[in-house]
């Protein structure tokens, strides 16, 4: 892999340069408590140290709501309306968010590639950044705390700048075209990179692996925990909307007021909504809130075979943004651990 250093004094210049490759989006502080990816109008607003964003990066590839076709109700014809997607730069993704996009790739670019997703994915330059975990993070248990593929550039924090890993052909091009702002990596930088990695690992609240969870879940479908926890659930869908790998969507035809034309639109859906499993005629494949609650746990802990990881990347968003205070990680640990023993990490 190719490594470079970006010195502190060149960071603003770097942001300026990468915005030449397309509209720049990066995490910004949007309120006292929250961060979110926003279009960068002012480089000084870009946040390098943040724990999580209120909406995941998936929104740039599967927008929360977007038009698929226009239709003519008289001829019955549908016409594709998506124009070219302008190149854009997505700066500041954490490792878990990059793994999440690769999971989405597996679904959206399978044997039936999704044209809308593919076009946006092709147009997006991905620049990752290292992070330190907070108490909600468990990407280490999901083995998604470090990425080796799926980004163009990845920035690792150093005391005096960033160590950059170049992860794609496009990454190489960007670097080649801007060599004047980069330096060679020194031995001190390598030591500092290792120190940061060590510190990061020591900060994780839990250790171990969740590799067996999928099966333990299957074996504990009768646990009383499901009743207790699903009872608290408001069914609001925040957990799935903020999840970087939740990808369910719904589609609707919306006629215009003239009654002659209209648009077929696609928008995020959630398995936590009653309508998710409801079919015409009234049958619901996930009738109760408990059914829907368990479904999310099973779905997130299932394996995405191409990567060998679970669909959950351990970002902690679903817990952090849950208005009912349902703790996904604690529930998983409760399920995994032996009944009667003190839960791991709870001492």
């Amino acid at each position, binding site marked *: 892999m190719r490594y470079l250093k970006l010195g502190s004094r060149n960071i603003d210049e770097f942001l300026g340069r990468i915005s030449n490759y397309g509209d720049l989006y990066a995490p910004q502080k949007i309120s006292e408590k929250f961060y979110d990816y926003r279009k960068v109008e002012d480089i000084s607003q870009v946040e390098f140290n943040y724990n999580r964003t209120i909406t995941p990066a998936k929104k740039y590839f599967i927008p929360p709501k977007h038009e*698929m*076709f226009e*239709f*003519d*109700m008289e*001829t*019955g*014809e*549908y016409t*594709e309306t998506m124009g070219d997607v302008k190149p854009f730069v997505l700066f500041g993704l954490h490792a878990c968010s990059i793994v999440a996009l690769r999971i989405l790739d597996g*679904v*959206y670019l*399978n*044997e*039936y*590639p*999704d*044209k809308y997703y*593919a*076009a946006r994915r092709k147009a997006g330059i991905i620049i990752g950044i290292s992070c330190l975990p907070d108490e909600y993070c468990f990407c280490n248990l999901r083995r998604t705390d470090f990425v080796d593929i799926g980004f163009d550039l990845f920035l690792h924090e150093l005391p005096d700048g960033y160590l950059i890993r170049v992860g794609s052909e496009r990454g190489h091009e960007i670097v080649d075209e801007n060599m004047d702002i980069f330096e060679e990596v020194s031995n001190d930088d390598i030591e500092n990179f290792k120190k940061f990695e060590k510190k990061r690992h020591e900060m994780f609240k839990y250790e171990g692996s969740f590799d067996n969870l999928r099966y333990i879940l*299957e074996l504990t479908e009768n646990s009383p925990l499901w009743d207790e926890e699903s009872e608290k659930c408001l069914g609001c869908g925040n957990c799935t909307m903020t999840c970087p790998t939740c*990808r*369910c*969507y*719904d*589609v*609707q*035809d919306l*006629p215009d007021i003239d009654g002659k034309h*209209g648009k077929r639109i696609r928008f995020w*859906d959630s*398995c936590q909504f009653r309508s*998710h*499993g*409801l*079919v*015409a*005629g009234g049958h619901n*494949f*996930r009738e109760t809130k408990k*059914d829907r609650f*368990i*479904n999310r746990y*099973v*779905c*997130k*802990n*299932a*394996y995405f075979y191409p990567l060998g990881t679970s*669909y959950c990347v351990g970002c902690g968003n679903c817990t952090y943004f849950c208005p009912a205070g349902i703790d996904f990680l604690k529930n998983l640990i409760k399920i995994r651990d032996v009944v009667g023993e003190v839960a791991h990490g709870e001492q």
Partner: protein
Amino acid sequence: MDNEFLPFPAELVDVKALTKDTKLYRIRFADEQKQKSFSFKPGQFVEISVAGFGEAPISITSPPSTTEYFELCIKKVGKLTEKIHRMKKGDIVGIRGPYGNGFSIEQLYGFNPIFIAGGIGLAPLRSLIKEVFAERDKFGNISIFFGARRPGEIIFKDELKEWEKMAEVKITVDTADDGWDGHVGFVSQLVEKANISDNSFAVICGPPAMFEPTVEQLKKKGIEDIQVSVSAERRMKCGIGKCGHCIAGGEVYVCLEGPVFTYDRYQEISKML
């Protein structure tokens, strides 16, 4: 890149009422080339769109050997199907597909095929049944067991009559009314009473509630779970493994891996909710 979600205009070339809420639609792509290149397997489905009303997956009921058109059997159950029921010969719908794995006719070679259908579940099986009749000498005895809620809900009545020439055809209704002198009860009871050899392969399509009692009867006749195929019911929406509504256990997109499963695999999946 092609847009897999784009529906192709297709004409309703014939519409026939089968019961008071179920119609048979004969459909042909407006583009002749598209119709010519359209091939499918029994048990596969298409997505049918009506501009302004939405889209739904519907199984193809005609056999693949019929190439000048294909047929969909549609029951009026929701907003889109109500609209389709108001449409007439010559009207245009949008079609994309076919999708799903479909039934494997080769799997039935050398066996006595048993087709077990409940309600509108006969529609996808009809495609396979016709195909089996067309290759008659590759199979043993053919049985068709069909259950409808009421006598008035029996679809493909004339064809069922005609099929008696080539197969054992038994019909039952959940609830009889005046004038019905046939069997009353569930379709599993037809299986129970039938003379079935263990060299049979059963294909089941209908409401999921009928699977278990039916398979139980088949088992008593020595038919293993791997000699049974079912077409699974789910809320399928996009048909191509994207929208997530039909995911079972987080892993199986029923629209891609299914909807047809051997019964042993189906049991795994249905447990996953």
